[in-house]
């Protein structure tokens, strides 16, 4: 086994092995646990850096292992997987720091960080999956690894939220499995190849391929929170803030969206999907989700729930980009995968900070918080502006490309209104929050001031992550034309997909 065949496995192992060890640590061994977490994250960053460089220069990194005849576990690094892997790696590092601070005095930390690492490993494995079979395996592993995180607090609400989460995701997983098996029976082992392989099947299979597509989309749509399969997401907000941050920015929701991108581009091929008339359906589902999510977000007073519905809406931009035929639309969808992740995690970090420091859970309690916690609120504001689509934050770039792509593909008629309406709605539910935070006077006392004002507004481990990710969101927008930026990378993916 040489380096090229081992690298994908090593990237997965860099979070899996520390996680397994952490399970067996004594509850009070803080330093060792922190060391393992950060060491694993650090090693992963280095390995992923190597991987990025290698894939850019057309190296092939692939690990494969036969589980049964015709069923091969394949981890393969191509341009799309590297995009998702780097997002997961960077955000994992930041979230680990945040979680260490957030769970300072909580019980069951060994169990938490153990499953946390397993969750990241499953996400990385999913990102690196080289065929549909491997993808399905890691998709289900992700469900298993995230359930204990959602149920972590052990309260009746947490258990109820976890149960609902499980019902949705296991149901979706079952449909995904059936679709994947069916596809393999018809078309043989479905490796992820740019441009897809299914267009070569004879025409009598087209009916079955359409049904399979529907099954796969429903299965993936549950995790990607496509309406009406999104019901689990607001319920899962009972989890601690680091979990919400990870689930919404990186792991679960992105996994579903990533799966949709993979199926359309690398299994069916975007041109073939369009020929079968399936892109239109996907686009409609995405559009409905975008508008519905934004509308529900307007009516939420609970900050995390508002952010949850915002996620429902924003992740569907990725599906929308996938449904727009043409490289520009593709770029818009794929780059939003990264941008939305960075921006959303900032928002959730900030929300967690408000809750941990001042006991704020509702928007109505946020009056004047900008004076008390300026750095956090600045980070929140940058991310919120990005969500609305205001330059130079990264979100603007995604929306620009989506709009351009829609015009090029000739579907601007219904895509542009969706983009405009959703941006307006985003403004409608984010701007009032910013107004309250910066321009209103605070009430007599905060709901529950856990961390008193000292030299910094809150604990270091809670403060720096959102500042860093807000900076990244700004940088992704300002330096979008730089080499190795998310936009450049999405451009590379699109060119390889369309054969340009």
């Amino acid at each position, binding site marked *: 086994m040489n380096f090229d065949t081992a690298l994908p496995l090593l990237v997965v192992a860099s979070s899996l092995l520390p996680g397994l060890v952490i399970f067996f640590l004594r509850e009070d061994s803080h330093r060792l646990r922190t060391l393992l977490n950060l060491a694993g994250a650090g090693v992963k960053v280095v390995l992923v850096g190597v991987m990025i460089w290698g894939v850019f220069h057309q190296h092939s990194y692939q690990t494969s*292992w036969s589980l049964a*005849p015709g069923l091969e576990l394949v981890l393969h690094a191509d341009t799309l997987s590297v995009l998702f892997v780097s997002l997961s790696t960077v955000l994992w590092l930041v979230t680990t720091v945040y979680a260490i601070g957030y769970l300072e005095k909580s*019980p069951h930390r060994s169990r938490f960080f153990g499953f946390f690492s397993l969750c990241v490993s499953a996400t990385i494995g999913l990102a690196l999956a080289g065929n549909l079979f491997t993808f399905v*395996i890691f998709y*289900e592993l992700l469900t298993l690894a995230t359930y*204990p995180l959602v149920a972590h607090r052990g309260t009746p609400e947490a*258990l109820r939220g976890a149960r609902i989460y499980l019902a949705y995701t296991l149901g979706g997983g079952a449909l995904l499995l*059936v679709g994947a098996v069916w596809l*393999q029976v018809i078309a043989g082992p479905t490796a992820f190849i740019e441009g897809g392989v299914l267009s070569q099947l004879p025409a009598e299979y087209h009916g079955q391929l359409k049904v399979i597509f529907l099954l796969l989309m429903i299965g993936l749509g549950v995790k990607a929170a496509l309406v009406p399969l999104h019901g689990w997401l607001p319920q899962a907000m009972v989890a601690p803030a680091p979990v919400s941050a990870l689930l919404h920015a990186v792991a679960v929701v992105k996994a579903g969206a990533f799966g949709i991108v993979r199926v359309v581009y690398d299994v069916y091929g975007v041109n073939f999907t369009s020929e079968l008339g399936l892109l239109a359906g996907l686009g409609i589902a995405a559009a409905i989700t975008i508008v519905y999510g934004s509308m529900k977000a307007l009516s939420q007073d609970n900050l995390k729930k508002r952010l949850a519905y915002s996620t429902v809406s924003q992740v569907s931009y990725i599906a929308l980009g996938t449904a727009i035929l043409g490289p520009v639309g593709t770029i818009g969808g794929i780059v939003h995968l990264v941008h939305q992740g960075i921006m959303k995690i900032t928002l959730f970090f900030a929300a967690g900070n408000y809750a941990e420091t001042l006991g704020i859970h509702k928007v109505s309690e946020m009056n004047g918080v900008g004076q008390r916690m300026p750095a956090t609120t600045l980070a929140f504001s940058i991310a919120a502006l990005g969500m609305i689509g205001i330059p130079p934050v990264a979100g603007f770039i995604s929306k620009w490309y989506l709009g351009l792509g829609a015009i090029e593909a000739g579907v601007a008629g219904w895509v542009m209104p969706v983009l405009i309406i959703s941006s307006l709605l985003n403004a409608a539910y984010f701007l009032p929050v910013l107004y309250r935070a910066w321009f209103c006077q605070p009430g007599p006392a905060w709901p529950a001031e856990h961390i008193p004002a000292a030299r910094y507004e809150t604990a270091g481990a809670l403060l720096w992550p959102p500042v860093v990710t807000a900076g990244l969101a700004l940088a992704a927008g300002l330096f979008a034309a730089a080499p190795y930026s998310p936009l450049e990378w999405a451009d590379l993916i699109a060119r390889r997909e369309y054969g340009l």
Partner: protein
Amino acid sequence: MAETLIWLVAVPLAGAVAALLLPRQSTPIVSVTAVAASLVAGTLLYAVSEQGRLSYEIGGWSAGLGISLRADGLSALLLMMTALVALATSVYAAAYFNKAADRARFWPLWLLLWTSLNALLLSGDLFNLYVTLELLGLSAVALASLGGKTAAVQAALRYLLVGLLGSMMFLAGVSLIYAGYGTLDLSTLAGVVAAEPVAWTALALMTAGLLLKTALFPLHFWLPPAHASAPAPVSAVLSALVVKAAFYLVLRLWLDVFADLVTPAAANVLGILGAGAIIWGSWRALRTERLKVLAAYSTVAQLGYLFLFFPLLQALPPGPARDSAVGGLVILALTHGFAKAGLFLAIGIIQQRCGHDNIRELDGTAQRLPATTFAIALGGVALIGLPPSGAFLGKWQLIAASFATGQWLWILVTIAGSLLAAAYVFRVLGHAFGHQPYPQRPVTMAREEWPALILTAMAVLGLGLAGAPVWDLMEIGA
């Protein structure tokens, strides 16, 4: 290498006799025997994978007059599973029975059970199968009645009567075969048997008897009480191995010996009964209040999955698709064996800790025994059929075979069964999250928790990740 076949029967038998005669040294005797038997099973597996089918004539008498022992890929795999499960459970049982008198009563019967399992899996003719089947039933009943309480004895008695009925029907079938064909040797019969009334009646009788013993819906009524009242190590072996032995016989008869007789209608009957088992068993598991009853009904359901394969195998022509499906069936059976055994052992630990196995009152105990709870979680993952367990691979093959043959109904049943299994597994696991303090060390009762963990890990990781050789071994046919 063919001598391993007779050693596999002789070692546990010798151990049983020794344990009976020397009760005070019975535990060390059992330890030595268990390790030795496992080593022999491993040797056999290796020998079969290298040399193909093995056979051994006892006493040198040729087939027809003498007893012949045969081993192919399927029996070697099941023998290995038997050995590993029995070894782990022996370690567990040594700690479970803390009174020496209990242990002295337990060990001889335990080794006798192991002997009969090995002998059954190795038998090469129908009558020997009958004898070993009876021996298996008797030792299983005796072990099940060791629970002591009235409920246990009643359940054991019912189990015995059902078992005797089944064996008698099996014997009736065997006698008809001899009347019709004059031979009882399995490989000879495979060539000679034809689709005529004698063969049909015989197969029907034998199958009916075996279905009683393998507790296929609706003949499953005896299983939940018996498995739920028996001591934990006994329940583990009953669910994991004993019912599997009867299933193995159905498999042998339908796929090997009487393969030409099987009609689509007959195979569909088995499939429909299997579907009923899955739905009914999973539903009852979801509704029960006791962990052991949940595990017992789960066995009923999981055996149903195995029977779903019959209509599919009947419809698939010989070729790679059929071989993949057969391998899927075997890996599903193996995974269930390991997972269910580990699950029962873990439940036994909980029962010993707090005196009961009520699901609603699980909170404190589940959180204070993280290793046990993790074993239950792993076993549950294998029962649901989630990756990376071997059951996931088996279910994939099941669904693939359904698509390949166009028999869609089984897919719906499989998915429904998996979702129901998820419901009853996570109902139990929800109790692992609560407010009890996390103990300092995760493994608290080493001799009992490690066997449970290892068995369930075999099901989930061992067979899931390293299960490809199962398909290679199944190529070595009888």
